């Protein structure tokens, strides 16, 4: 249930273009063919009582509360399961149905606790509401018969409670888990009086439940209730905002009592999520008020000194003075900044503006460097725009889904639920991944092809698909002729047809059988609508950009661009990594992806900003770190990014940070990077921000303040103060003004404003005069660059190879309950599901090394060593090991290397040659041992 009662029409909307006219209680109403009588009545303004029906789920017809009378039909059919027929005359309020409904309600209430006044759902309970609506006055059965009032409560889940005594067995929760989430964790066990909801015969916590909250949302009583509501009471007000976890960008209703957040409920009309959520966005928001939050500026002269609290004025003045001192001594380019992919568009925009106009350099970069920078490069080269081509809804029209290097059920769960619905409806599935991810085989879903390739052979595999498409006559030549650059196509066709790209040649290096490659290619080419969804398993490689272009090539070759159900879809990891890129957080590009050397574009910024701007590209993050070690780069401003944990080769990052004279960190917590900082400026959580995020489908959503900034300042205000202290005055009356400035300077954002977003909810850029309400699908009539450009994508094996010393290949990824470096999720109850990073290793590799399940192991690469617990798993093939990177103690990046994508320097996180050996000592023991050794030497 939810505080802000959005209209619930009882059954989902029908999509037919044909129309049917019926009469409900004397009122004619015209509805799409297939509409239920219940929904037609609701649209006519007559709410039929209901308990098992809700418009997010398919009709079920179990509660019998929604019975109506229909002329010419016998009995009293359930209006939820009865489709409208032409000329139907329906009566929803007759003495007969009124009596039947009261009788039904009597039965429900005869087996329900009468504790409304102390129930946590008091005032927010559909059972309570329906008892009033049907006019229940007595329960003739009494309360002494057999009942379920003593049924137990399952409190195992940290976020919600399952009180069986209040369950009316409407099955909404079961159906929500099936239809919306797609996990099928719940069922009805038993028959008749013994029927009850069960999470697979065990507790919720021990079941397959992924704690998405769909069941809690669907429950019409207090059976499934948020523990926060039980503790704090029913919320009294609502603020619409956007999640700050992954790139799906779910819309939420933050429900509060005063200034205290009680719960986050997914918004039904959220463009990205349409009423669904995952465990993180739904429940794991407690980090925003965690005691670890730093709320006061901190400064120190040396990183060996303790922090001391300072006023904003002192901290900002100190930072500005130090920056200028350093620039005077070492040059204007000795300083730079890193923007956050977690902060709003407005906050990021002002940081890059400060770096360019106040610092006077283009040394600004963002965390997209380490994740999807190859997407920006590759799609710009081929299509002309650095972003995905579709909206999320497009997957509903896909016939073939190709998932490459992505694990959406863990990393983009709400989108994965959409994808799974389409797969259960019959779409075909091809997965390219070294691991057996959940999607390969899950409830009612089996991949048609799992191309389980060797890490580092992506390009070879996609080239092989292209080879089949080109040599077996599967090219859509009409599309190519109309939409693509023919010279580049001819060159690509000749290249891809070479024998070295054949499945038979690629089998040896990739480990994927040739017949599987051929079958997958034929399936993709057959479509008719084939869509590619990909993640960091594509980009975080030495040929990440090449791989993006290779995927774009096969999409163009088969005509799978420019309409629903197709496209190239990067599943961007962070809530605003797309926005961070859009806002010009790149050393070579101004906002809107225009090169800094473009004089005409740069002049527009110079005029509006009143500052001379540099026309030469600045340093990327890896360049800054390298230059720090040579003494050329001396000061770094880091907004909402923990490079000491998230960037590869941790030792290198640490040495670089140590070498700097000034590190300024603006963040929520004292993170790993802050260990090397001299100034800490406390930031705000998403609950305190006022701005916008842009998700993976280019959708710009509002982020509204749910509570006042606990630090006393919005992050954009901090940047303005710092810029002003540096001598470049920057001031805005509101974050809305910042977006207005973005719109004035950025053609793809020209139509965007807070007023528009408040009116329509969200828009996907480009949003301008040509597309005033945004652009769900790109490249419809033509590519942004004009004609699509095929690119030659020769496979160049990575230099990171397994050797006799390091015979295994490590790849990394995410898990559902934790998020990125874990700064947020580690400070919530989500640790109940995942409280440490584990190393997945195949049984045969473990046995050969004497490694046991749960035992400590040392993981060594040529760069470094770390310790983790092993988990024997058949998800990884022999020769491949896998871990997550959510806990700093696991040191996943201590062992990742300096290799990176040739075009963008995106680190090659997904291929590291390692050896695994059992160890008796865990990381704490290793640390204690190291300290003891250090003491002995002192």
């Amino acid at each position, binding site marked *: 249930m939810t505080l802000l009662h959005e209209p619930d029409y009882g059954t989902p909307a029908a999509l037919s273009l044909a129309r049917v006219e019926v009469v409900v209680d004397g009122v004619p109403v015209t509805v799409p063919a297939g509409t239920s009588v219940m929904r037609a009545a609701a649209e006519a303004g007559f709410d039929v009582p209901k308990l098992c029906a809700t418009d997010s789920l398919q009709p079920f017809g179990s509660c019998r509360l929604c019975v109506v009378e229909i002329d010419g039909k016998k009995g009293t059919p359930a209006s939820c399961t009865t489709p409208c027929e032409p000329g139907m005359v329906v009566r929803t309020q007759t003495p007969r149905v009124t009596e039947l409904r009261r009788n039904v309600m009597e039965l429900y209430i005869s087996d329900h606790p009468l504790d409304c006044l102390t129930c946590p759902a008091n005032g927010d309970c559909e059972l309570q509401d329906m008892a009033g609506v049907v006019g229940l006055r007595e329960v003739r059965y009494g309360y002494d018969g057999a009942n379920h009032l003593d049924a137990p409560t399952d409190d195992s889940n940290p976020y919600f409670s399952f009180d069986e005594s209040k369950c009316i067995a409407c099955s909404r929760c079961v159906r929500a888990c099936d239809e919306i989430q797609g996990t099928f964790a719940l069922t009805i066990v038993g028959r008749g009086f013994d029927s009850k909801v069960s999470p697979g015969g065990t507790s919720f916590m021990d079941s397959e439940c992924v704690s998405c909250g769909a069941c809690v949302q669907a429950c019409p009583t207090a059976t499934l209730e948020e523990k926060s509501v039980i503790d704090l009471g029913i919320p009294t007000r609502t603020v619409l905002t956007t999640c700050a976890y992954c790139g799906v960008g779910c819309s939420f209703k933050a429900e509060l009592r005063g200034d205290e957040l009680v719960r986050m409920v997914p918004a039904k009309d959220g463009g990205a999520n349409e009423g669904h959520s995952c465990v993180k966005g739904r429940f794991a928001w407690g980090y925003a008020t965690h005691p670890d939050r730093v709320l006061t500026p901190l400064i120190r002269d040396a990183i060996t000194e303790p922090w001391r609290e300072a006023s904003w004025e002192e901290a900002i003045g100190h930072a500005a003075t130090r920056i200028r001192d350093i620039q005077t001594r070492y040059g204007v380019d000795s300083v730079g900044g890193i923007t956050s992919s977690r902060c709003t568009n407005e906050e990021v925009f002002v940081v890059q503006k400060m770096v360019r106009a106040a610092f006077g350099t283009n040394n600004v970069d963002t965390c997209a460097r380490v994740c999807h920078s190859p997407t920006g490069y590759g799609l710009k080269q081929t299509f002309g725009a650095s972003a995905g081509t579709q909206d999320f809804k497009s997957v509903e029209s896909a016939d073939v889904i190709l998932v490459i290097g992505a694990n959406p059920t863990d990393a983009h769960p709400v989108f994965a639920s959409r994808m799974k619905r389409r797969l259960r409806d019959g779409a075909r599935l091809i997965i390219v991944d070294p691991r057996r991810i959940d999607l390969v085989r899950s409830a009612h879903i089996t991949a048609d092809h799992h191309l389980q390739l060797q890490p580092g052979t992506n390009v070879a595999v996609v080239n092989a698909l292209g080879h089949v498409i080109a040599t077996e006559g599967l090219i859509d030549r009409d599309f190519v002729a109309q939409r693509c650059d023919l010279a580049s196509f001819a060159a690509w066709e000749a290249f891809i047809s070479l024998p070295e790209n054949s499945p038979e040649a690629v089998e040896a290096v990739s480990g994927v059988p040739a017949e599987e490659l051929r079958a997958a290619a034929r399936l993709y080419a057959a479509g008719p609508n084939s869509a590619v969804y990909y993640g960091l398993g594509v980009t975080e490689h030495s040929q990440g950009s090449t791989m993006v272009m290779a995927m774009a090539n096969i999409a163009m070759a088969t005509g799978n661009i420019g309409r629903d159900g197709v496209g190239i879809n990067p599943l961007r990891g962070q809530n605003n990594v797309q926005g961070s890129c859009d806002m010009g957080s790149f050393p*070579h590009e101004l906002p809107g992806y225009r090169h800094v050397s473009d004089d005409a574009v740069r002049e527009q910024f110079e005029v509006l900003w009143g500052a001379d701007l540099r026309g*030469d*590209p600045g340093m990327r993050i890896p360049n800054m770190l390298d230059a720090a070690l040579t003494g050329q780069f001396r000061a770094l401003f880091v907004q909402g990014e923990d490079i000491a944990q998230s960037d590869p080769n941790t030792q290198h990052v640490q040495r670089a940070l140590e070498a700097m004279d000034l590190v300024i960190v603006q963040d929520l917590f004292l993170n790993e990077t802050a260990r090397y900082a001299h100034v800490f400026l406390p930031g705000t959580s998403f609950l305190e921000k006022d701005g916008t995020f842009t998700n993976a489908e280019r959708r710009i959503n509002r982020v509204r303040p749910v509570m006042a900034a606990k630090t006393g300042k919005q992050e954009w205000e901090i940047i303005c103060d710092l810029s002003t202290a540096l001598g470049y005055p920057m001031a805005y009356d509101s974050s809305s003004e910042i977006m207005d400035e973005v719109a004035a300077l950025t053609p793809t954002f020209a139509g965007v404003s807070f007023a528009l977003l408040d009116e329509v909810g969200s828009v996907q850029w480009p949003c301008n005069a040509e597309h005033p309400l945004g652009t769900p699908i790109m490249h419809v009539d033509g590519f942004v660059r004009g004609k699509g450009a095929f690119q*030659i994508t*020769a496979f*160049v094996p990575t230099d990171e190879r397994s050797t006799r010393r390091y015979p295994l290949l490590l790849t990394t990824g995410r898990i559902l309950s934790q998020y990125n470096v874990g700064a947020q999720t580690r400070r919530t109850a989500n640790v109940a599901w995942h409280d440490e990073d584990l190393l997945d290793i195949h049984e045969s590799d473990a046995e050969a090394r004497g490694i046991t399940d749960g035992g400590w192991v040392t993981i060594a690469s040529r760069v470094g060593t770390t310790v983790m617990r092993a988990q024997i798993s058949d998800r990884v093939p022999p020769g491949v090991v896998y871990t997550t990177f959510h806990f700093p103690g696991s040191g996943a990046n201590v062992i990742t290397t300096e290799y990176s994508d*040739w*075009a963008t320097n995106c680190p090659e996180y997904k291929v590291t040659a390692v050896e695994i050996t059992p160890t008796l000592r865990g990381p704490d023991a290793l640390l204690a041992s190291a300290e003891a050794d250090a003491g002995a030497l002192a």
Partner: protein
Amino acid sequence: MAGQIAANCAGLTEEQAVTRISGHLHSFWTPVMIAEFGEFVRAYPDDVDPLVLCALARLDA
């Protein structure tokens, strides 16, 4: 880094490869990085891919 860029020009014609490399250096490398690389090339020309040498020459022109 420049060598890696050159290696990833496999399959391109020489002109296309030189264009890609010089374009990449111009678009993404700072003037200091280009200057330092130029010094390295002058000191160790045999250690540099010939395509990269052509690309640098084009940048200087």
